[in-house]
């Protein structure tokens, strides 16, 4: 075991997988000598050469489309979107192509491709360098979406994504990159995509969340413990498929559910989670299902006080849990 940062876990997973399997290559903007604008691919071009760590032209649709073509004929591309905010020019290639090639050919053709993208706010990024984009993809059958919160989960899930025979969107929270550190085993391991994780056991309120918000929720839970409120914290880790069992189990356990995500509320991932609970565990509930999320505005402002206002934090989360506990 070693202590690694969240971003080191990314780099380690990439390097180890590329060592293991020659068909894996990286494609993205500035992933080469620059090592990525966040340095997630640092050192890889030196190790694997510019044939396998490709600085692509500034063309997201080509990055994804070319990856799809390469994946169809047997390669395993790991494409990088420099920021999740810039994934939309590739939306057609992801939604119309990557997600459907298996289905439309009954698995005659498949797309074993991973798309990595840094997402999330709180980094002075303004409208277009702070976004969470999962809500714009979670409806799409044929893709998987992973959003890990810890270095351990990052490494195990990124390896699983790369080995998966279907397209996986792998969203990494920018704020976590250097902020979050944790133990990572030295041995090779993977984590099953679609399985959540209880990050804290509790009995009063169940919080269902993912990404940076897991950490904020755990902080809130610490504070609340002193007040005598016990919080059950589910880290979804994957947004698609969702770990329905863990969600239902968590809802039944406390009867009070708070769904937390950084992204805006309306039409967010929280809606689906709430609907699943309302469909399958309604009579186990002791309080309305609550969602705590970002405001429904088109983006996170650059203005520092406004960015702070937009972002959730442990205090806001603790308040919401407290309210629910007292319900």
């Amino acid at each position, binding site marked *: 075991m070693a202590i690694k940062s969240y971003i080191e876990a990314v780099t380690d997973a990439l390097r180890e997988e590329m060592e293991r399997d020659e068909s894996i*290559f990286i494609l993205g903007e500035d992933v080469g000598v620059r090592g990525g604008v966040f340095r997630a691919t640092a050192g890889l071009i030196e190790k694997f050469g510019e*044939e*396998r760590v*490709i600085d*692509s*032209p500034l*063309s997201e*649709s*080509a990055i*994804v*489309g*070319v*990856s*799809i*073509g*390469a*994946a*169809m*004929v*047997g*390669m395993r*591309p790991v494409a990088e979107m420099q920021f999740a905010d810039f994934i939309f*020019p590739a939306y*057609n*290639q992801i939604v*119309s*192509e990557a997600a*459907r*090639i*298996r*289905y*439309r*050919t*009954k*698995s*005659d*053709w*498949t797309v074993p491709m991973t798309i990595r993208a840094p997402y999330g706010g709180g980094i002075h990024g303004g409208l277009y360098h702070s976004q969470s984009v999962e809500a714009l993809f979670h409806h799409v*059958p*044929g893709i*998987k979406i992973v959003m890990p919160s810890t270095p351990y989960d990052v490494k195990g899930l990124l390896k699983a994504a790369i080995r*998966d*025979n*279907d397209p996986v969107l792998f969203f990494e929270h920018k704020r976590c990159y250097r902020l979050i550190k944790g133990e990572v085993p030295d041995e090779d391991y993977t984590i099953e995509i679609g399985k959540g994780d209880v990050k804290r056991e509790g009995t009063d309120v169940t919080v269902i969340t993912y990404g940076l918000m897991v950490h904020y929720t755990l902080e809130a839970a610490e504070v609340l413990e002193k007040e005598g409120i016990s919080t059950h914290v589910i880290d979804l880790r994957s947004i698609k498929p969702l770990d329905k069992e863990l969600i239902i189990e968590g809802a039944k356990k406390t009867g009070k559910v708070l769904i937390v995500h950084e992204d805006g509320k309306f039409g967010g991932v929280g809606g689906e989670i709430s609907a699943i609970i309302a469909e399958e565990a309604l009579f186990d509930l002791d309080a309305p299902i609550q969602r705590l999320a970002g405001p429904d505005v088109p983006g996170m402002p650059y203005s520092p006080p406004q960015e702070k206002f937009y972002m959730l934090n442990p205090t806001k989360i603790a308040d919401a849990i407290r309210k629910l506990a007292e319900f």
Partner: protein
Amino acid sequence: MSKHDYKELGLTEEQVLNMYYFMLLARKLDERFWLLNRAGKIPFVISCQGQEAAQVGATFALDKTIDYIAPYYRDLGCVLVFGQTPTDIMMSAFAKPGDPNSHGRQMPGHFGGRKYRILSGSSPVTTQFPHAVGAALAAKMRGEKSVAYTSTGEGSSNQGDFHEAANFAAVHKLPVIFYVENNGYAISVPLDKQLGNHNTADRAVGYGFPGHSIDGNDVLECYKYTKEAAERARNGEGPTLIEARTYRLVPHSSDDDDRAYRSREEVEAAKQKDPILTFAQYLRDKGVLTPEKEQEMNDSIAKAVNEATDEAEKAPFFDPEDALTHVYEER
């Protein structure tokens, strides 16, 4: 009539007859689709008629044992050359088991099939361009000699994916052939409203690789230029853009009525240059297509089309619940 001498292009008598065979087979299958559609037996047709020379000429220049093609919806000629059978085609038209393209899931014309080295295509146009570039990138990375061929219509060449794919391939000097079948219309929209420069091959200049606008009614010319492009690609010299100038002899699809937007005179004039008629005449003039051979070919094609139609008509449909399978890998 072709201005090329097939022998000078290194083609044998048998090969040119074979080319003609595929052109005619594509045409006859296509004509049958329309009959089936008008009889209410298949809901949708999208046609190759008028573009057979462009399609057959190009794909004949490829190596179907190692190359990949990512064709577009009109490319019946291409997929026949790459090995799809009349039965494959008819199963697809009827959306029945045996359809190698999509197993009944997609509309006809959405080609594919791993065993034929045909990448799966969809409806949003030009998405296949980056895919072909990806296949070419893989070939280069693995040191394989294979070429990726992809085609689209001239209207579709205005999608962003055209540009992004072309530039990407140029940067990496990838073994890919971009082929535009310029048939003068994007559904109803004529060239004047589609393109600032009617010659889409001129775009190659901007990417730094060769571009050729060629006579798409001349199967030998299409063969010649594609052959050269494939050789360049195999030699590591990078992509080529080819525009084949053709004409769409029928409406856009079975849902279209082209009388609203083009004159009958224009269509009639184009029919005079029907590549199948002109190539047949060329072959007759060269003494290659004898009356006996022609009869034989017509008979065998008619038989193949009839049998394939019968088989497909009689085949059962897929089970309804089968629609739920193959969303993700099934283990």
